[in-house]
């Protein structure tokens, strides 16, 4: 029965060509093979976000008057509202974490080297988009923490040299974080960012299919065992994805996401206000920089520094690869270790101080 249905579809959609292509996809087996899972996990979590996000859209109201109350309604009155919302919040954090792990694993296995420079670049864009999702989504519940975190965040963005003030105004929809900001962030979060992410994710995945799975430099490509992607590796991926689902469910049930208190624009900032963990390292770095360094304003220097760092990181395939097209393994791995340690240490410092 199912065979007939598939044949019917194949005659009209040309599925068998896809099947042949899929059959060719293999995954090399070596010491770092386990890291290949992380891209897929990120994709899976992104799918979870789309589904839970769409469900939340059925009840969330993106206004100052009703934003908080609609989330409260979701958490208290809607059947399983607590589950959908908590999964959405937990999955968001897990997604960003997995994205970082995926990025670092790509760096340490040097998969950015030719011909995969564009895959790397699109990946960096995707990472930025994930952070944008996190930042815009964080405001939507309109509680005290989200309001003040957004205030701090847009203030920091506003201190970018030259374009800062314009950026801040466009982000906020005005001079202050308020109703206009909420509307904009909502538009960004449910339409603009998803569209851009869709495009870049598609590009990223197509490039991966086109260029195949990269083998690390210390593995001779010709002498490595391969495993077929369909069905073998994919079945394993399904196991991992199912496991991730179990983890999400457990987190949502045992540690449901907090409601917080409704944002009060006239209250003073809560003590110890800090951004979400994925912005903590930058936050703490900015706190450490003295207000004036030589002739420059400290914050300006910090932001310029982050910008330079991000640009350099995006250009990794340029400086991390020698003229012969080989990865500068020691240099890049060293830089990556420094970056990873900086992020970890400063995030912890930002959390505890």
């Amino acid at each position, binding site marked *: 029965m199912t065979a007939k249905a598939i044949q019917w579809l194949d005659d009209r959609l040309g599925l068998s060509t896809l099947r042949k292509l899929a059959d060719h996809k*293999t995954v090399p*087996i070596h010491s770092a093979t386990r890291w290949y899972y992380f891209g897929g996990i990120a994709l899976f979590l992104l799918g979870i976000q789309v589904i839970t996000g769409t469900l939340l859209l059925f009840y969330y109201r993106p206004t100052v008057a009703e934003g908080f109350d609609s989330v*409260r309604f979701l*958490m*208290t009155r809607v059947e399983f509202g*607590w*589950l959908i919302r908590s999964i959405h919040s937990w999955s968001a954090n897990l997604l960003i974490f997995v994205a970082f792990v995926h990025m670092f694993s790509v760096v340490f296995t040097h998969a950015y080297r030719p011909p995969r420079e564009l895959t790397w670049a699109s990946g960096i864009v995707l990472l930025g988009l994930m952070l944008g999702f996190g930042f815009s989504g964080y405001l939507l519940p309109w509680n005290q923490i989200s309001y003040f975190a957004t205030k701090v965040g847009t203030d920091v963005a506003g201190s970018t040299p030259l374009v800062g003030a314009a950026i801040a105004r466009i982000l906020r929809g005005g001079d202050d974080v308020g109703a206009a900001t909420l509307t904009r962030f909502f538009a960004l979060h449910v339409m603009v960012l998803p569209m851009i992410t869709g495009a870049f994710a598609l590009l990223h995945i197509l490039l991966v299919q086109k260029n195949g799975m990269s083998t690390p430099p210390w593995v001779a490509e*010709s*002498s*490595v*065992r*391969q*495993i*077929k992607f369909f*069905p*073998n590796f994919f*079945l*394993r991926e*399904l*196991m991992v994805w*199912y*496991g991730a*689902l*179990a983890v999400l*469910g*457990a987190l949502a*049930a*045992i*540690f*449901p996401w907090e*409601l917080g208190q409704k944002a009060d624009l006239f209250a003073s900032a809560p003590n110890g206000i800090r951004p979400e963990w994925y912005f903590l390292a930058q936050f703490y770095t900015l706190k450490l920089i003295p207000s004036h360094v030589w002739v420059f304003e400290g914050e300006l220097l910090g932001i310029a520094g982050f910008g330079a760092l991000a640009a350099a990181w995006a250009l990794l395939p340029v400086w991390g690869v020698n003229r012969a097209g080989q990865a500068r393994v020691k240099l890049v791995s060293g830089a990556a270790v420094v970056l990873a340690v900086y992020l970890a240490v400063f995030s912890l410092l930002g959390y505890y101080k």
Partner: protein
Amino acid sequence: MRFVTIAVLLLPAALIAQTRDSCIQCHSSMDGEIQKPALLIKDDIHYANGLSCADCHGGDRTSDDPSVAMSPAKGFVGAPKRTAIPQFCARCHSDPNFMRRFKPQQRVDQFELYKTSVHGQRLAKGDENVATCIDCHSVHDIRAVKNPAAPVYPTHIPDTCGRCHADAQRMAKYGIPTDQLAQYRTSVHWADLKNGDLAAPTCASCHGNHGAKPPEVSSVAAVCGNCHVLFAQNYDKSVHAPIFSGAEGGGGCIVCHSNHGIHPPSTAMLAGPQAVCSKCHEPDTPGGKTAAEMAQWIDGLGAALNHSDAVLTQADQAGMEVSDAQEKLSDGREDLVKARLAMHLFEPEEMHKPIEAGMDVAAETLRAGQEALHEKNVRRIGLAISVFFIAVTVFAIWLLIRRLEVGGSGYIEPSSRNP
């Protein structure tokens, strides 16, 4: 330019006029008692308003010659006799036209009030032991009442009155107790005052400040009733009002609550070994039974509300959303307040109404809390079920993989790959 020149020339004159206070200049360079006023006056509110020694004591402050500066011809009157101090201050402080220049809303009846007070009446008869203006307000460094360093700043008033009234030796000849300050220090009013509630009563709030006198027995409830309005109203309607009006040492509220050592009320006052009701009502009389019943009601409602609160907190900490019920709980606490208020009618039916309302709230919120805890368990069970199915599926996939890859199928060896 011309303006500047004139200003420059006039400036020394202005400065001289300001600093030309021979009283302070001479006295500050002396030793002992006569130096003190000159040093203290820097903190004085009169000095801050441009007044100085000569404005009270008379004399000529522009002269360096003591015989001129302190000559009676120039109006010098020196330090007034103790019994004449109030009139001395009243020369200005009872003159509305004079006071209007400095502070139009300042009262000018302090001297009149003082004359009606116990202190004023005794002073008029020649008793120099009693308080005069300077005993409470200090002299030469008189600070505004709202200045936290002033002896008449609310938190300092008990000490200021207590300087005499807690001194057993000093008060011996008057035959009044000296334990008021000690008692007051144990009271809830002092605790409130210390905590920064400047509206909390001090000695002056009930006894008056300038017209200080103990309130008569019949007016005690009126004094307490100034702040505790509804309690006084209820009490006045109750059976106790006429009965306690003739009580010794103060009637009304004081009978149960004491006057100076007022402690936070509790059901221990209604029933139990410290009960005030049992002073008149034997336990097996209708009155005694009512007292016990009222105590039970209050304790019962308090306990029920606390129990609901504990359950809701437990649910909240387990991650459940119970903010609605927690808000409702405050309605219950309001009912408890109303019940304690209604108690002062000493009429059980009146008190029972808010008690019942409060118990309903307690029951409702307890139910909400218990439902939330139950829901939490339901979620965990649902999670377990889901995780179980996921585990089964994962296990099945693993088995499938094993079956598919029998004999290494699905693997491509390096030697078989095309270079």
